């Protein structure tokens, strides 16, 4: 049994995911964590006498070896590490929704304090690709930014949605680190500097990422899933009803390979083997875990795993010694093995008995009423499933329909569908009332996103009076574009927006792609090129037309730029296209974007004006206060009262102004997100190199505030004509 080597109880709360250990003076490891009221505390158990006396830092009144750092804003991310290799000690980095602070704890000075408009939801420190100096990379609203120790912005790119987690990992094994980005649109993207080299779609928001070793990394989702990827392939994953608060790679059983350590919302900490996900160690805290980090906290040359709970409890674990042979749990391995084997045996015996009983039932008389009650059904009962598009009626919106039916007079009591990402929870149940039981059930499905989904069906089959049912299990795949219904004949008017490109594939391969990704009717025969197919979206009735010419030229007409991007990405992966340049025009969307850009400018100028006002007002406060106090000293109570009344009014004004500023800021953020997303969307219309070129060019255009060039890039892919 592995026991903690030290346990501390600090009387400060710790904000989840915001814990870091650093050697801020170059020798002593200290724990820094964000706490309540916009503060960061630094726990330094090694040099007790040291006291800070600076405006930003104050001694904690509760704990002698804890100092508090005032940030005055809710901290949104925190890390520590070497930012300036010349300094020889670690820097503390604190991100908020508007700023990033690089702080030199030892000298009590700022390395830099930068305003970041996209916010900092996540932060990672390290070297990225070929960039020589270490970078502090922050992820905000659809944007990624990397700063060196002087605060220079050396890295900037956009991603699909708000960033929630970041990690650096040598993904492709070239000895250089790639950036892993987990975002709100359930995607894990891998950036080789500013080029996306891989994209993995998960089923929920990715809350944490951590490098394990080599190309392997761990991830955690907001629905309680944790798992391990090797490159783009998922090794294993498990789901719990609790949430993974923090994950970390640490070799706890001294076998030379890191395990995935997870801190859970219910206070559990477990270590799982990187290969199988098997639990090799667990411990429980009385409160949720805030962070899992590592460091030589006792300064004895051994690195400990340090787990912190939100209540401020800190426990350190040393890796198991060789004698423990990886046996970190308290029960003996043999006992467990015997129990497991016996359980297996019992399980097999039960199954065997089932078959025996089945044989008995078979030899008895033909099917009777009593049999139905016991759940005996004809052995040749089969379950059929069919997917189709239902255009809906006035009562029900259009949807994809899954029809489940049995091959005889047996009824389906209920259907459970387990699928990720398309229902509110992880499952959907259809349980007809006792009066409406029949041998077939229709299940309406409306997937919110265009992703292929595996539907794991469990159907309870029996008779009306049964108390026991057979469970039929099967898996169906829902095609990516199942929410688009074929419209024939083609509508008179097609969308004005289009994407145009040429691929070197025969027309019938395109047909194969179509039949795999859309729900086509079985009798839909598509003739040779040139041909044209049109679809209607079941979500908003939008049109999608795909035209194929004999030359291999394909035109996609749709007003939905996201859909066009999805279609192109799906085609590219199906036909294994590496680079694809396209010509695109989305006049409606571009017009909206133009308006957004104008608004961004407006909000920026309002923001500046408000900031100036605020500065004026704070000067006014100072003078009012001085005058009021003067009046008090002069015992001129009347004037004093008046001054304080004025101060009170001013305070109210300030509060109002603050609200205005807040609104302005959220509007600004929303619009900036839209701009970032537009760049991302323009990129998604292309594949490979052209994609990166578009993103870089768009970014340059925005920097130089050249809107017309921006649209030109989005249309043809390059700035120059």
């Amino acid at each position, binding site marked *: 049994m592995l026991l903690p080597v030290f346990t501390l109880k600090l009387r400060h709360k710790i904000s989840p995911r915001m814990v870091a250990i650093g050697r801020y003076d170059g020798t002593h490891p200290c724990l820094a964590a964000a706490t309540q009221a916009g503060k960061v505390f630094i726990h330094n158990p090694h040099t007790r006498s040291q006291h800070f006396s600076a405006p930003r830092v104050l001694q904690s009144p509760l704990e002698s070896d804890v100092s508090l750092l005032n940030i005055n804003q809710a901290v949104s991310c925190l890390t520590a590490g070497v930012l300036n290799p010349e300094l020889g000690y670690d820097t503390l980095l604190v991100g908020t929704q508007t700023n990033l602070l690089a702080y030199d704890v030892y000298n009590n000075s700022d390395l830099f304090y930068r305003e970041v408009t996209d916010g900092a939801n996540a932060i990672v420190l390290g070297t990225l690709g070929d960039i020589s100096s270490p970078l502090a990379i922050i992820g905000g609203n659809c944007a990624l930014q990397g700063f060196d120790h002087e605060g220079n912005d050396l890295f900037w790119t956009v991603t699909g949605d708000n960033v929630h987690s970041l990690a650096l990992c040598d993904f492709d094994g070239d000895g250089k680190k790639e950036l892993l980005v987990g975002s709100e649109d359930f995607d894990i993207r891998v950036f080789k500097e500013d080029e996306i080299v891989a994209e993995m779609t998960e089923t929920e928001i990715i809350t944490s990422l951590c490098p394990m070793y080599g190309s392997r990394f761990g991830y955690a989702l907001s629905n309680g899933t944790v798992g391990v990827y090797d490159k783009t392939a998922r090794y294993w994953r498990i789901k719990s009803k609790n949430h993974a608060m923090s994950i970390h790679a640490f070799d706890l059983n001294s076998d030379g390979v890191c395990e995935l350590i997870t801190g859970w919302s219910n206070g559990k900490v477990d270590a799982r083997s990187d290969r199988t996900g098997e639990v090799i160690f667990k411990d429980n805290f009385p409160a949720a875990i805030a962070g899992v980090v590592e460091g030589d906290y006792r300064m004895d040359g051994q690195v400990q795993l340090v787990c912190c709970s939100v209540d401020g409890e800190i426990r350190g674990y040393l890796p198991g010694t060789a004698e423990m042979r990886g046996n970190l749990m308290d029960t003996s391995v043999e006992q467990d093995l*015997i129990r497991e084997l016996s359980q297996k*045996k019992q399980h097999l015996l*039960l199954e065997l008995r*089932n*078959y025996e009983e089945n044989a008995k039932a078979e030899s008895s008389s033909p099917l009777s009423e009593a049999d139905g009650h016991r759940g005996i059904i004809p052995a040749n009962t089969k379950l059929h499933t069919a997917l189709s598009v239902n255009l809906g009626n006035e009562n029900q919106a259009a949807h994809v329909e899954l029809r489940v039916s049995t091959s005889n007079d047996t009824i389906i009591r*209920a259907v459970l569908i387990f699928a990720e990402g398309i229902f509110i929870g992880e499952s959907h149940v259809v349980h007809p009332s006792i009066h409406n039981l029949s041998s077939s059930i229709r299940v309406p499905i409306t997937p919110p996103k265009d992703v292929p989904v595996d539907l794991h069906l469990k159907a309870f089959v029996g008779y009306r009076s049964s108390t*026991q049912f*057979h469970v039929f299990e099967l898996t169906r795949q829902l095609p990516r574009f199942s929410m688009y219904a074929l419209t024939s004949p083609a509508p008179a008017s097609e969308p004005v927006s289009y994407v145009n490109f040429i691929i070197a594939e025969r027309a019938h391969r395109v047909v194969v792609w179509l039949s795999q990704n859309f729900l086509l009717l079985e009798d839909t025969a598509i003739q040779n090129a040139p041909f044209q197919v049109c679809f209607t979206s079941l979500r908003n009735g939008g049109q999608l037309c795909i035209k194929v010419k004999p030359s291999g030229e394909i035109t996609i007409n749709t007003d939905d730029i996201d859909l066009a991007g999805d279609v192109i990405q799906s085609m590219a992966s199906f036909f294994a296209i590496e680079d694809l340049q396209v010509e695109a025009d989305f006049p409606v969307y571009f017009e909206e974007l133009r308006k957004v850009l104008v608004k961004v400018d407006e909000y920026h100028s309002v923001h500046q004006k408000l900031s100036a006002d605020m500065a004026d007002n704070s000067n006014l406060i100072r003078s009012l206060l001085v005058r009021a106090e003067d009046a008090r000293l002069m015992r001129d109570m009347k004037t004093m009262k008046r001054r304080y009344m004025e101060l009170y009014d001013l305070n109210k004004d300030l509060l109002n102004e603050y609200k205005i500023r807040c609104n302005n800021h959220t509007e600004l953020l929303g619009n900036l997100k839209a701009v970032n997303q537009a760049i991302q969307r323009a990129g998604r219309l292309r594949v490979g190199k052209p994609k990166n070129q578009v993103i870089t060019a768009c970014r340059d255009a925005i920097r130089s505030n050249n809107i017309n060039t921006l649209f030109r890039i989005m249309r043809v892919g390059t700035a120059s004509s």
Partner: protein
Amino acid sequence: MDLVLNRADYVQVGVTSQKTMKLLPASRHRATQKVVIGDNDGVVMCFGMKKGETVTVFKTLPGLKIERLELGGVLNTPQEKIFVAAGSEIRGFTKRGKQFLSFETNLTESIKAMHISGSDLFLSANYIYNHYCDCKDQHYYLSGDKINDVICLPVERVPRITPVLACQDRVLRVLQGSDVMYEIEIPGPPTVLELYNGNGGNSGEDILFGTSDGKLGLIQITASKPIHKWEIRNEKKRGGVLCIDSFDIVGDGVKDLLVGRDDGIVEVYSFDNANEPVLRYDQVLSESVTFIQGGCVGKDGYDEIVVATYSGWVTGLTTEPIHKESGPGEEVKINQEMQNKISSLRSELEHLQCKVLQERENYQKSSQSSKAKSAVPSFSINDKFTLNKDDASYSLVLEVQTAIDNVLIQSDVPIDLLDVDKNSAVVSFSSCDSESNDNFVLATYRCQANTTRLELKIRSIEGQYGTLQAYVTPRIQPKSCQVRQYQIKPLSLHQRTHFIDHGRPMNTLTLTGQFSFAEVHSWVVFCLPEVPEKPPAGECVTFYFQNTFLDTQLESVYRKGEGVFKSDNISTISILKDVLSKEATKRKINLNISYEINEVSVKHTLKLIHPKLEYQLLLAKKVQLIDALKELQVHEGNTNFLIPEYRCILEEADHLQEEYKKQPAHLERLYGMITDLFIDKFKFKGTNVKTKVPLLLEILDSYDQNALIAFFDAA
């Protein structure tokens, strides 16, 4: 001294019921004992342990489910004759496995409990109790509610035959011959009775009882009256007690109390100087503990606690240390034993696997033929659906002999499913859009590997009634599922009680008409929980109930042609009136319903609610302040500047937060009940006040008792 017990699994048999295992008496002190166990397949097995290997002494053929297993023999000699109860038959075996007795009792129901003492045999089926002497019928008693266990004071020490019945209606009935001598009310439905110290204590009259809500107690049954000695309340909200034994495991010369519960907890209580029990040790097993006994099975000279669990595991919690200190050679030997065991298990598994594969193929083949049938494997589910008094919610426990894959919960009444910390299952609530399908709740619980037990917490609303269904699918092939149904009754939050306060202002509902006693009883069963299905004997019956949430009460007195229901809560009367008239209409029975409303009762009920509401409001307010106060504390460093009230909150912060977490939505439920009370009060007057409800909620938001009472009076 800390008690350290190591777990050793001996053998697994079929699913076991409560009290179906015994240790045979040892030949000498601390010598290994044989274990005899009966399972649901009807197999009685006797085995001993030799060098870590199980040695089977005998094993009978399968038959009817074994309900009880007891040891007997001539008084004052070793009790080593084995008696089992299966169906309505009692069989007797010698310790070598020779059957010497087969006694068909001719009871119409199957036997549920058994006690043996010399040549006296005490049996009980669901409602019937029978006493046989030398297999001749002596006495008979028909109980008003289900009998869970039966015991008799030791006849060799107490000069009379005194059987005691544990009845579901929270009563121990002490019999004399065929008559009840007296009844003892206890705080929960008793599930098990056991003689104190195995012999009835100093007087021979002390018996221990355990209840399904987890309480334990000791009572002395004297010739004239019961004496309550002590009681352990279930503070930690552990599972119901299934088995008790007295055994000196600590080794201090005083017999300790061993307790097994239905949530897998094994406890050891020692007795302090005042003879009060103190918890010494507890261990959590993963499934219900159906039997517990102290003895020695695994190795000579080491005492242990032997337990049997629901899925048939016989496990020892032994004082024998796992790692011997007697030298390196010994350890190797132990490991060798283990290795042998493992390899033999492995080869057995391989063999089985082949067989299963073959059978699987056959099964697949049979599905091709059009005539063949496919039967669903039956598996046993151990379920319990009970009302918790403390938080007025139901708990549903499902236990299956193998691992559960998933559970689908469906309900046609609005209920809340609450999270239970112990569960590791992933819950997912499905939308139930189509109203035609009578679904209010559809939720799936996907269990993690090796989960055999699932616990759910359910909050119901009084007046909304219907059925809750659980579809349980275990992980076994061929896949199948079983449905279990549970009734959510109209007055679901009421609980039987033995006495009520007659001084309260009461509202009365009177039913008259042409209905039989059985009919009116069936209505009461339909409306209220904890009422026996069978109409009790006698012409007129009185039941008392208590609302577990509000502590209001209900008295129901009924006979053929008349039923009178009295409650101090108007809402209770209103629900009864609605349900009864609906039921009567359904069965086309002409009912005269009259009611008498006592205006004072409303004020009285509000006064009953007042302390609860005030407490909850204060608690909510305090909890809200905690975070802000803590922040101030961090800022200022000390709390001396705060007023005492706030300082107090800070000191009790953890406790307050825990309390708050324990009762989610408590305030909302109270608000809901006050609103119901308001609507019901005026419903009886014939006015609809639904439009005034928002006004009421406004008053509740800024709660003041007098304002609320005034509003009730004024509206």
